[in-house]
């Protein structure tokens, strides 16, 4: 054994000192390469607010650890909705996303994109597309919304696959005319799947209703907030010391 070792050492002409020096140098280089790569990756992993992940996508951090960027979901999508991100555009290189204003998600019943995903970055537990949470639609510009001007556009409401659940029209008295109603499109974030059909269909030049990733669209109450279930919170519970 030791004979073989000494033979190998003489064959490749490496002694201990050279070995240690090379190892140290290579490790330093790798450290720097690693830092560089991590910087590039962290800099470009911020998701563009308009890049919406496919249905069933894990939370962004988990998604980036799971997605192998193979494009099987893209090829499974029958509507050419999904794209693989290019460098410096939309999402992390090679990961799937879609832009709702261009082509929204058609919410296929059989969810072929999720079924095609080999890595589980699109969660296979999603079996009903109505439970998808790709993002949340937000009526972001009330000023330019035709319904807020007292007209009956209603397009976002009409195209919504979950009409009257995800988007409802809330009646409000139109103070301008004094005897008309305004039908205000109102989104229920608990139901909205983020398919983006409302953003796609919005008639204004720039959509006034936009799908945003949930972490941008939604606020979050603090963990110690005792009023989060106001309707269920009783006076006794409050007096007891708030063990909800």
């Amino acid at each position, binding site marked *: 054994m030791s004979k073989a070792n000494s033979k190998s050492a003489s064959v490749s002409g490496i002694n201990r000192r050279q070995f240690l020096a090379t190892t140290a140098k290579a490790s330093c280089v*790798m450290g720097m390469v690693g830092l560089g790569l991590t910087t590039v990756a962290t800099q470009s992993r911020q998701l563009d607010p308009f890049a919406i992940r496919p249905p069933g996508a894990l939370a962004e951090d*988990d998604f980036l650890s*799971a997605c*192998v960027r193979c*494009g099987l979901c893209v090829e499974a999508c029958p509507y050419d909705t999904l794209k693989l991100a*290019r460098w410096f555009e939309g999402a992390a290189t090679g990961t799937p996303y879609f832009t709702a204003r261009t082509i929204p998600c058609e919410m296929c019943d059989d969810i072929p994109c999720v079924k095609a995903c080999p*890595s*589980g970055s699109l969660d296979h537990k999603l079996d009903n597309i109505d439970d998808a949470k790709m993002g949340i639609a937000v009526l972001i510009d009330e000023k330019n919304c035709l319904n807020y001007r007292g007209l009956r556009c209603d397009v976002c409401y009409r195209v919504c696959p979950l009409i009257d659940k995800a988007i409802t029209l809330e009646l409000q008295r139109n103070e301008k005319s004094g005897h008309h109603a305004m039908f205000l499109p109102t989104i229920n974030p608990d139901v909205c799947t983020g398919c983006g059909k409302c953003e796609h269909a919005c008639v204004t030049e720039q959509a006034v209703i936009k799908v945003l990733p949930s972490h941008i669209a939604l606020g979050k109450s603090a963990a110690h907030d005792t009023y989060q279930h106001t309707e269920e919170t009783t006076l006794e519970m409050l007096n007891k010391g708030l063990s909800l």
Partner: protein
Amino acid sequence: MSNQHRTATKSTTRFAQAAIEELGWWRSHRFLILRRLSQLGVLSLFAIGPFFGLWLFKGNLSSSLLLDIIPLSDPLVTLQVLTSGHWPELSLLLGAIILVGIYALLGGRVFCSWVCPVNIITDVASWARRKLSLPRTSEIPQNLRYYMLTLVLILPIATGFTVWEWVNPVPIVYRALLFGASSGLWVLVVIFLLDTFVVERAWCSHLCPTGALFSLVGKISPIKIAAVRADACNNCMDCFSVCPERQVLKPVLKKGSTQPLILDSNCTLCGRCIDVCAPRVFQYENRFKSKYSNRIPLKVES
């Protein structure tokens, strides 16, 4: 003016002249042509899906589905997903196991020379170096690739996401062609410039972690190149100048070598040494054929 001069020198010092005269043009370029056909063929098998609707392979080199049944996935990206702490669907793991099985059978780095599209670029860079007679410049250690491999597998542990996949050049060509994500091609330009002007064969033979992983897979492969007529070698050095991993040739061509098989798993089995050798020293061999199997390869050799 200089063109005339170049053709004059070219006719006298054309690369692998002896092999072309001895074996003819086809025999002396056979494996080069076959490899290019194989590399472009695999790419075409993926491309006929999105372009013509003939779905043989879906996906890309990172992970794919053959005929809607057989999953295939890159073992490197699968390992990265695992080290990042995500347990993938069974098809990804199964795909990686199938792929490792295939390449363990065919010879691990067969991927590099017969499938990987980056190889075309680095081969062109190496050809350009030869044509321009660029001097050998800086040397970097060959085993740097194993450090790269370690780094690529450690980074997901440290950061929680598959960092290498941002720049991994291997799937970039496929992504560019199949999914129109062409803006990543700058990585390949960098590799071409690095290979041509900085270090000879820098990417494929020194740095690429995918190649490093496949060389580990290939350690158990039966297919090897053997110097079956090493005694006929006339020391023309053509195989050395064309070989992407010339260190693997030394042990078999050394005077008095009794071991004809190139057991170093960094041999990419590209077959260029077979092409350019006028005395027909090399050929593909099965390592477990009876004339080789009576001895156990020493650890030193592999």
